[in-house]
């Protein structure tokens, strides 16, 4: 767990038995979790409660039951202080109308409490950072989808928040624009010491940016933890790539009790209980094959996610 830069608490945010209902719909169901500082990925299928959790953390909605803290502040009583310390880029396409890019970001800064002069100076800085320096004097209505996403990001970081919350930041973006946003999010989280809550449906995006993930489903916590730990190594499952055609190799391994699956030029080999990976080398030798690549198989984030969702 990372330390808080202020030294107040080692926990970025925590929720204790939080329940939130909208009529018959239970958006958050006795949700309890504790999350460390750093880049956090928030995953979950549609309707899992991700957006409600973000709104709860920002103190935008009253909860039916439960309590919690974010950056050491109670989300039930210190809503305005929380929103001042946090930068939030909402999922929807939303704009302050009829302003230029630099005016948009400066206004966002002023709304958080910056003076006009500070906000304007800072707006120029962050627009340069997100790559909108050249478009700063264009009316925001003329921006492309990717530019609008970067504009939202700029307006979320204009006051240098301790925590940045990005809700589906790469929605509707082309691959190049998506990569730019991910690069910015990665840079902020890993090089600038800003904690990040990154909510997305796109698992590769989360994987590219986050160190820790939280998976929600049906308003409950399905799983959470360090990404590398969740993608655990499979001790008896190996990825093998050979120099030549591997039919004979596969057949021989199958005869020895291994399970072999072929994915293009890659073989996934699961060796039987009690056997050592040495048998792979031995078999290759016997088949006069060269092993060019051998690695214990790791779970992908997709597998972790699907496994967690299947549990519900």
């Amino acid at each position, binding site marked *: 767990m990372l330390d808080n830069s202020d030294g107040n608490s080692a926990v970025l945010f925590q929720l204790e038995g939080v329940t939130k209902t909208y009529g018959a719909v239970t958006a958050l169901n006795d949700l309890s979790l504790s999350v460390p500082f750093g880049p956090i990925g928030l995953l979950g299928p549609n309707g899992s409660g991700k957006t409600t959790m973000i709104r709860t953390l920002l103190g935008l909605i009253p909860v039916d039951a439960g309590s919690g803290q974010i950056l050491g502040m109670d989300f039930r009583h210190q809503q305005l202080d929380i929103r001042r310390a946090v930068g939030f880029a909402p999922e929807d396409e939303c704009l302050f109308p009829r302003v230029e890019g630099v005016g948009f970001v400066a206004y966002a800064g002023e709304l958080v409490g910056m003076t006009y002069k500070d906000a304007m100076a800072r707006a120029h800085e962050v627009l*340069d*950072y997100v790559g909108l320096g050249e478009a700063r004097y264009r009316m925001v209505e003329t921006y492309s989808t990717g530019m609008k996403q970067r504009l939202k990001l700029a307006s979320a970081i204009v006051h240098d928040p301790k925590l940045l919350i990005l809700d589906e930041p790469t929605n509707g973006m082309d691959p190049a624009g998506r990569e730019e946003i991910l690069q910015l999010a990665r840079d902020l989280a890993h090089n600038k010491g800003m904690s990040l809550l990154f909510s997305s449906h796109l698992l590769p995006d989360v994987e590219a940016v986050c160190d820790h993930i939280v998976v929600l489903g049906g308003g409950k916590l399905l799983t959470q933890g360090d990404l590398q730990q969740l993608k655990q190594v499979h001790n008896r499952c190996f990825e093998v790539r050979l120099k030549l055609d591997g039919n004979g190799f596969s057949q021989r391994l199958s005869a020895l009790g291994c399970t072999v699956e072929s994915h293009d030029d890659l073989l996934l080999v699961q060796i039987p209980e009690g056997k050592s990976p040495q048998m792979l080398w031995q078999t290759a030798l016997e088949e006069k094959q060269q092993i060019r690549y051998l690695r214990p198989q790791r779970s992908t984030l997709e597998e972790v996610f699907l496994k967690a969702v299947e549990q519900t």
Partner: protein
Amino acid sequence: MPIFDQGYQHWSGKLSGHTWRWLTITRHGIRAGSKNRILRTALIAAWLPAIALVSVLCLWGLVERRSAMVASFLQFLTFIFPAISTDPHRYRLDVWRLAYSYFLRTELFCSMLLVLLVGPSLISQDLRFNALPLYFSRPLRRIDYFFGKLGIIVAFLGMVMIVPAIVAYILGLLFSLDITIIPDTIGILISSVAYGLIISVSAGLLVLAMSALSRNSRYVALAWVGIWFVSGIVSTVLLNVDSQQRRYAYYHQITMRPPEYNPDMTRQERTQQMQQWRRQREKVTTAYRLEELEFSKNDWRPLVSYVANLSRLGQQLLHTNDTWVDLSQLQSDPLQRDLMLATYMGPQFPWYWSALVLIGLGGLSICILNLSIKSLDRLK
């Protein structure tokens, strides 16, 4: 690409507290509005009546001092109203009240025009571009949002009603060089400022509520024109229909023909006959107007007009009717006195009727705003 990319820099400035956060929205709205050339022109045009107000107050200050600068005007005044020129101090309050009353009546029209230029887009554009999540995810409450938007209207209307009223008052004081003017006239200043605030808040709430009902500001502008003009037209039509019916009853008397020419009458007799006829005609006309004035004390029809309601409150706050009663004493002839009152005094229905209408509209506006501008506490 920037020539020198310094990357992301941390910021260590100080953020202000939450109390005055709504002012940010007001400031932003004023900045955005001041970029509109039509609005700037309208503002300048709306300041012209203020020049007239200042001129009257300064002129009266000089008249009270019998300054040589206004000698020709004093001669003119002596010729028209000798009583006033003899003791201008006695009529100070009346002149100031009337000056402010005419100024505010003109500015009421200007303020409706300014609201038309500023108000319709205030919330409708935020709805159209989905700006509310951006506002409410920042340290801002709904009430701050409403206050901020209302502040824009109040600021623009204050620029043309409240600020000129205060400036004119100060200049009037300076030109009179008489400290006793303050206790005499401070009530007028307070009433003018209060009236300016009433117009600003009432019109602001109303236009914001309409703006919250549509994503298209053109429709909101049309609705505002409807409130402003159409309600006035409807009220006028209703008043005229009713008034014409009563007028018809007087028709015979008012338009009674002059006496027939009688060749047997001497010239003197003929003149006397005509004078008698004219006097009788005046009596009937005055009686008709007085009856209209009396009838207007319980006439609900002006209440249909939004502007008439605001106007009635202004009349009450500035005590304009008392002024006309006072000035009517200048007429020695009781008939002329009554005619003057009947001509110049405005609507006579109870002022609290208008106040109730405006409070009702304000309450309705608040309800609409409350229902239309929701927080983010809802499912998508």
